[in-house]
């Protein structure tokens, strides 16, 4: 116990102690860490081969350009509105005749009054409101009407008029008989307020977010760009889920059949930990005896025993089938097949996989060949119609089981067993499902 207590005391004393690096040590560590942080990520440089760099640049610049564009448009509209107010010497609160001089020409204090333009002197005279309104309505001055209809102050004027009416709460007759305010008198407060509610131009300018700004150049050079972070994330995913492409060749046979040869491409993708998915696209060829039947043809076309995958066919009962069988067996079977499967790496070098196989038969029988093989006469064909219906089907399906051993990082030996689930020959009694075994070599390209 004393030994442990001795160690414990030393350990506790050291843990309670404060050991800090010197300032020079911290600065040296900082100088090492920052370049390492930048170097560990993919840095976007002018010579970067990242094909997405332009996309990233566009994704950053386009929103900024859109914000700047719309912000500038808004400020331009504000200027236009203010300018129109100062230039509008025609429209008034009630749309009275032209030559209305506003009280002041400042841009936010545009006021509108009604003045009788028919006077020879400049002194305005009181004009009944209703008369002024009527005069403007009946005005033949196209320019006035155009100005009235096009100028934005019309909108403001109508709104002001409505507010004035509501606030004063007077009936129409009273307003009609009320004389108009003279030119130099101040405008109604409400109208001024309405006009003055036009925002300052600078508000919209300041609302535009700053592009760039004052950034410490030392820090700016050390901060990784957005692209480096995205590249790091992409690289992370790339390294964890590689896609392998290989070429495969195989040689196999089924009971009593001709040799089966297959060759094609294999694509593999890791799913999770030890599980992976793959898909093989191959061309398969079998020269005759695709069904594995024993051809025991005799001189006579009748009385033959033919063994198919399962079940024997006696001569008398299945003469027609035997003949068809023999005929079919003379046809080379060429297929394009797709074999997707899911595999499991049992060890670092071995794996098992289960999957399905879907094959498209390229070469099918021809009626004339069958007729020749069968020795059938035209009358027999017409009567029994046997040859024309018997052919290799277009599709063939099965399930597969594979076992593999990785000889090296590039080469793998594989054994495959294929169990047919569909009949490859149409309109032929019996089991014509193709079941075979195959040995193959897989060579990994990437």
């Amino acid at each position, binding site marked *: 116990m004393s030994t442990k207590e001795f160690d414990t005391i030393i350990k506790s004393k050291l843990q309670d102690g404060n050991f800090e690096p*010197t300032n020079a040590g911290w600065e040296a560590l900082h100088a090492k860490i920052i370049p390492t942080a930048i170097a560990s990520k993919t840095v976007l440089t002018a010579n970067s081969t990242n094909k997405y760099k332009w996309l990233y640049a566009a994704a950053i610049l386009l929103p900024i350009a859109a914000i700047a564009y719309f912000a500038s448009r808004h400020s331009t509209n504000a200027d236009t509105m203010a300018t129109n107010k100062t230039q509008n010497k025609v429209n008034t609160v009630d749309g009275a005749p032209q030559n209305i001089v506003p009280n002041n020409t400042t841009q936010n204090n545009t006021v509108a009054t009604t003045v009788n333009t028919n006077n020879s002197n400049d002194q305005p005279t009181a004009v009944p409101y209703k008369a002024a309104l009527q005069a403007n309505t009946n005005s033949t001055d196209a320019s006035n009407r155009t100005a009235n209809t096009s100028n934005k102050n019309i909108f403001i004027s109508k709104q002001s008029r409505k507010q004035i009416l509501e606030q004063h709460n007077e009936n129409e007759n009273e307003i009609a008989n009320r004389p108009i305010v003279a030119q130099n008198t101040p405008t109604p407060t409400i109208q001024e307020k309405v006009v003055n509610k036009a925002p300052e131009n600078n508000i919209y300018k300041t609302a535009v977010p700053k592009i760039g700004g004052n950034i410490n150049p030392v820090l700016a050079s050390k901060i990784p760009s957005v692209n480096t972070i995205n590249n790091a994330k992409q690289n992370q995913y790339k390294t964890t889920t590689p896609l392998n492409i290989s070429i495969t060749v195989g040689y196999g046979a089924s009971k009593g059949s001709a040799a089966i040869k297959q060759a094609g491409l294999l694509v593999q993708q890791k799913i999770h930990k030890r599980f992976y998915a793959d898909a093989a696209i191959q061309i398969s060829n079998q020269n005759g005896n695709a069904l594995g039947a024993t051809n025991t043809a005799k001189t006579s076309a009748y009385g033959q025993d033919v063994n198919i995958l399962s079940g024997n066919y006696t001569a008398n009962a299945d003469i027609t089938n035997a003949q068809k069988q023999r005929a079919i067996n003379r046809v080379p079977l060429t297929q394009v097949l797709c074999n997707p499967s899911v595999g499991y790496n049992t060890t670092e070098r071995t794996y098992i996989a289960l999957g399905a196989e879907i094959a498209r038969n390229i070469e099918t029988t021809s009626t004339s060949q069958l007729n020749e093989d069968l020795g059938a006469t035209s009358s027999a064909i017409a009567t029994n119609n046997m040859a024309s219906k018997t052919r290799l089907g277009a599709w063939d399906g099965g399930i597969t089981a594979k076992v593999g051993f990785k000889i090296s990082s590039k080469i793998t030996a594989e054994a495959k067993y294929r169990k047919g689930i569909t009949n490859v020959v149409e309109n032929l009694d019996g089991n014509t499902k193709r079941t075979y075994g195959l040995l193959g070599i897989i060579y990994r390209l990437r």
Partner: protein
Amino acid sequence: MAICIRYASCTEDAEQWLQDGYIKIFNQTEKYTGAGNLEGWLRKIITNTCLDNLRQQKTQYNSMHFHTKEIQDTSFGYAAANEALLKMDAQNILQLINALPQTQKMVFNLYAIDGFSHKEVAQQLNISEANSQWHLNQARQSLKKNLTQATTKQYEHKRI
């Protein structure tokens, strides 16, 4: 720093090894899967960095062969040493540890302070388990001896 300074012979080496350890941690952040204590993971990296640097310095700890017979503690009592330890601060204890021969210091650090087993210490230092036990005992003996001497000097100073 507390880990590095126990393995290094001087402060400069300890700072350098600490920087190397931090860079390793920074580059291997993705490897931490969350399983286990983060502090333990960090301490392990720093400890391994110190050991790697010591190996690079080509110390002779792996070429020394000692008899494997354990030496029983008979000369000094642990009770007295413990009492002396309680009166010392961390800096003094660190000096005592750094005064040990290199191999004894490494074995003592790995076993007594960092909690490695003799098997793991032997693997790290490329020695046998028995050798590791021997060096540990030697380290304890040396430390107790130095503690006693330090305490005696203190008393002598007081008398004077």
